């Protein structure tokens, strides 16, 4: 696509179309499944149909005898491979040993039991059907509250109470505040299990070169370098002999911010058989075995004065962990606790988490990871408090917001909010919808017997993960910029974009900083053999941390460019502008390509300067960033059927400085879609025996385009002082702001019936029952 961009124009802030898109929408991108290696085998995994069972025996004979089957491995073969890692550490955390194939017991439906390796994927699949596993079925428990009850089946027999950890955090005089509170509102609020549903399922291809003793793993992942470090440890392969390559990734939403059994298993098989081996997760497996999100049961209490001042928040959080800890499983609910005061000044909080094992697939990070749950909780509670006090929901929020002059603000949970003007997006959203007019419209609708609702949420989030001391594996990010001899520019970033558009935004940053053509920049990522160590893409960190690393690398590079420029122009002072070094005195100048060429030919070097034109920067952020915003949703409930229709969706997000409004809009739209999914449709349901009832798109409803409202996306821009770009992050904002606004809106619609809370998803039947006078 020809670009109309000229060199002089500043690109930051412009809605430039994504560089990534042509290959994505023409089907010419390269995913793991597009890769073919000579002599490649295919693997198919035999999985448990039971949620809890002892494995009595496994008969692999028939499978092995199938022509084309190369090998069949069971748990015994891989028992010495290191466990699937849990990167989160909490005091007293119980960590079950998570073998890459089940040993003598299975813990959830989909638990890998054996693997069949064959010359093609069809034979592998047929072979899997021939593996006979004899199970002794055991009682299972799939609901975290039931798992805590006396006499519940033990997920892990060694821990009969099913408790993986307890976590406590408090600030202020909690007991006193609640004892003296003029009002206390209490509510049980759930955030149901969700299934991330990326378009591309997981995919792994492993190749071992015995001569070099070098293993390469291609995987659809968000974290190539961490994957390499951790899988190297699991397999006992020296880290420098393992290369991880992440080609195009068809969505992750946090579900690929992980290290899975299959990644190590394919590496192990490649080494064992000496042949490359590929495994492509089926959609069925994706539902059953890729992490799920959310899974909260929260008991909230909020204390306040009669004038609406929030004085205390108390939370008991029951987290459904599933059967094992994946990479961050137990850490996710702790993020909810960090975020529990939301945007409010309240300094008295008390939180208790109990992490519960269930016979289900593990939960872990899914878009927002802990923060949507927290926002949903506090924003529902604030609405309930407003109802209790007969105050307007917007007014109550405005009264309790941290004020612009109070930043940096020390939150009750120990965070330092960087910057904010929380009233601004709320007021803007109220203006856009003409709030007073809407309330008037609502009065009229009610008079006509229609259930119209107006709901809002004002959210804050923790982004740009994060300062290293606050993260399990380092929270910095790296970038390297190389100007090639021809003047073209290659960027290596440690983040691993998979839909966030950093190939575009990072090119914008380079184009502006170096005054070069946007199309002369290529951004490479996701290959540990060519990219310096990096942390990856998650937690809305790509641009705020990775982009900042790039920014600093570019500053170093500019200094070097100037040294070479000064040398070439034979002067001691040059300016660098629009891709040229110029001497103000003589008016002479040299182009970046000339400078780069000279730096590689190295006929002459500036004093104390190395040849070549490259700079690498590892940036450690001093803090998280804290985006915020306000969403307002207008709904109407069909009286006959209980169907909720979203009539208006207004999102005013403040993600700091906006580098590319098109990309920001895309992130908001996608995030809101997933928020609407949780609010109205999605629910990963396990039955009492641990069978996943929503195991296909036939039963698991993600919103289709026809089910989406028009999203009016607006912004305020409050720069973050944490990084020189002023950016905060926007990858998760839409999801975080959405669900409380939708639910608040529907509760508002039904408030004349005495409804004060509804749990998600707001299915038509649930609403209909409420309309019938039943309880939600």
């Amino acid at each position, binding site marked *: 696509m020809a670009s109309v961009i000229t060199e002089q124009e500043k690109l930051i802030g412009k809605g430039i179309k994504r560089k990534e898109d042509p290959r994505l929408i023409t089907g010419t991108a390269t995913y793991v499944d597009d890769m073919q290696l000579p002599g490649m085998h295919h693997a198919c995994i035999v999985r448990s149909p039971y949620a809890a069972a002892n494995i009595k025996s496994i008969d692999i004979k028939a499978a092995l005898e199938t022509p084309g089957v190369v090998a069949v491995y069971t748990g015994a073969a891989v028992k010495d491979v290191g466990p699937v890692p849990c990167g989160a550490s909490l005091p007293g955390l119980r960590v079950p040993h998570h073998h890459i194939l089940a040993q003598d017991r299975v813990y959830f439906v989909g638990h890998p039991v054996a693997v069949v390796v064959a010359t093609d994927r*069809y034979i592998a699949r*047929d072979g899997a059907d021939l593996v006979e596993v004899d199970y002794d079925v055991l009682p299972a428990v799939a609901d975290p509250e039931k798992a805590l009850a006396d006499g519940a089946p033990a997920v892990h027999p060694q821990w009969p109470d099913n408790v993986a950890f307890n976590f406590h955090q408090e600030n202020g005089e909690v007991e006193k505040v609640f004892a003296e509170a003029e009002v206390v509102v209490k509510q049980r609020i759930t955030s149901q299990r969700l299934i991330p549903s990326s378009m591309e399922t997981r995919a792994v291809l492993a190749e071992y070169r015995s001569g070099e003793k070098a293993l390469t793993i291609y995987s659809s992942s968000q974290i190539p370098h961490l994957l390499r470090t951790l899988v190297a440890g699991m397999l006992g392969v020296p880290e420098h002999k393992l290369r991880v390559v992440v080609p195009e990734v068809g969505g992750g939403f946090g579900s690929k911010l992980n290290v899975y059994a299959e990644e190590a298993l394919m590496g192990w098989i490649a080494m064992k058989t000496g042949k490359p081996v590929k495994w492509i997760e*089926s959609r069925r497996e994706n539902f059953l075995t890729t992490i799920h999100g959310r899974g909260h049961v929260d008991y909230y209490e909020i204390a306040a004065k009669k004038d609406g001042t929030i004085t205390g928040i108390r939370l008991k959080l029951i987290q459904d962990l599933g059967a094992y800890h994946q990479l961050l499983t137990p850490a996710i609910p702790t993020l909810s606790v960090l975020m529990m005061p939301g945007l409010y000044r309240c300094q008295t909080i008390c939180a208790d988490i109990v992490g519960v094992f269930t016979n289900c697939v593990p939960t872990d990070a899914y878009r927002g990871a802990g923060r949507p749950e927290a926002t949903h909780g506090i924003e529902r509670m604030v609405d309930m408090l407003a109802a209790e006090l007969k105050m307007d929901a917007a007014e109550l929020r405005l009264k309790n917001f941290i004020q612009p002059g109070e930043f940096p603000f020390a939150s009750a949970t120990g965070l330092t909010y960087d910057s904010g003007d929380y009233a601004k997006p709320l007021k803007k959203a109220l203006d856009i919808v003409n709030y007073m007019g809407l309330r008037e419209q609502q009065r009229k609708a009610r008079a006509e017997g229609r259930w119209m609702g107006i709901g809002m949420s004002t959210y804050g989030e923790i982004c740009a993960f994060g300062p290293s001391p606050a993260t399990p594996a380092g929270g910095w990010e790296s970038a390297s910029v190389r100007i090639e001899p021809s003047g073209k520019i290659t960027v290596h970033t440690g983040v691993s974009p998979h839909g966030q558009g950093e190939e575009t935004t990072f090119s914008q940053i380079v184009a502006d900083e170096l005054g070069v053509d946007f199309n002369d920049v290529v951004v490479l990522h996701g290959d540990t053999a060519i990219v310096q160590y990096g942390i990856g893409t998650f937690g809305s960190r790509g641009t705020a941390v990775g982009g900042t690393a790039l920014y600093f690398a570019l500053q170093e590079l500019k200094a070097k460019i100037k040294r070479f420029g000064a040398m070439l122009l034979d002067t001691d002072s040059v300016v660098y502008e629009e891709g040229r070094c110029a001497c103000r005195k003589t008016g002479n100048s040299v182009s970046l390509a000339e400078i780069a060429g000279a730096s590689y030919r190295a006929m002459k070097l500036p004093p104390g300067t190395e040849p070549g034109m490259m700079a690498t920067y590892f940036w450690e952020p001093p803090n998280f960033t804290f985006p915020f915003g306000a969403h307002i949703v207008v709904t109407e409930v069909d009286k*006959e059927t209980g169907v909720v229709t979203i009539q208006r969706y207004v999102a005013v997000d403040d993600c700091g400085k906006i580098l590319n409004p098109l990309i920001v809009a895309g992130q908001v739209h996608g995030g809101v879609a997933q928020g609407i999914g949780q609010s109205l449709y999605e629910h990963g349901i396990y039955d009492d025996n641990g069978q996943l009832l*929503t195991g296909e798109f036939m*039963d*698991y*409803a993600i*919103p289709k385009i026809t089910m989406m409202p028009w999203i009016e996306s607006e912004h305020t821009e409050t720069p973050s002082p944490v990084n020189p770009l002023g950016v905060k992050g926007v990858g998760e904002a839409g999801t975080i702001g959405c669900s409380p606004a939708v639910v608040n809106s529907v509760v508002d619609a039904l408030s004349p019936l005495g409804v004060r809370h509804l749990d998600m998803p707001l*299915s038509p039947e649930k609403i209909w029952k409420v309309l019938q006078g039943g309880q939600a």
Partner: protein
Amino acid sequence: MIAHPFDYLTPKSLPEALLLLADPDAKALAGGMSLIPMMKLRLAAPAKLVDLRGVPGLTSISEESGRLKIGALATHFDIESSRLVRAKCPLLAMAAAHIGDVQVRNMGTIGGSIAHADPAADYPAALQALEATISIAGVGGTRAVSAAEFFVDTFTTAVGPGELVVEVSVPVEAAGTGTSYQKCLQPASGFAIVGVAARLQAVSGNISMARIGVTGLSGCSFRANGVEALLESGSDPQAAAAAIANGIDANSDIHASAEYRLHLARVYAAKAIRAALAAAR
């Protein structure tokens, strides 16, 4: 999601297809929209697939002595977009337009849909209301059965082993007839939680003929005779629609309990009747 191995056969004539289907391990393949997903999940594992799409003459849509004759291999899209069907039997076009998504409608066929007899499929409601006739061919010849006889039970039809649906025949609507198909979508699959087809003849608001077909509510599509009788004897639509749930053992699943389904059936029946009445004017 990989099927068991199977042989793929492409007969070039109806007799050849019927001959191949005499093998109990063979299965007919039309649009593949129901069969292929089942095979990929290994819930179905026919040893032979007999692809009907090479059999000539099964996709035509024509008018013949007051009826529309629709070939079994006409796709949902063919039917939804056919000028003939839209003009002369709009109910069928409307039902077709409610099926799945564009991709499914481009591949799926009417013969495949009704032979499969999913209890939540859309066509059965319309065909019941239209009192359609379905032609079934076997090695011994062709017979015609009414829609009421055709749909026997959940996934069960009058089509015997080795037989094929070859044609669906529906009436050309007379003047003064109004029809409507109203469907409550299940948000995940897009299938009907309930779907009601109404076909009414009315003169200045007085209903002289009512045919109501229902899908999704119970194990099999059916004609709501009670509702029809009430309408024909002058009941108002709302009251008549309420009778749709009488004596029905409604389905229940994670998307809708039996109680809610029964309620929806009443609501959608009323919608369909009102819309059909409006169309009859």
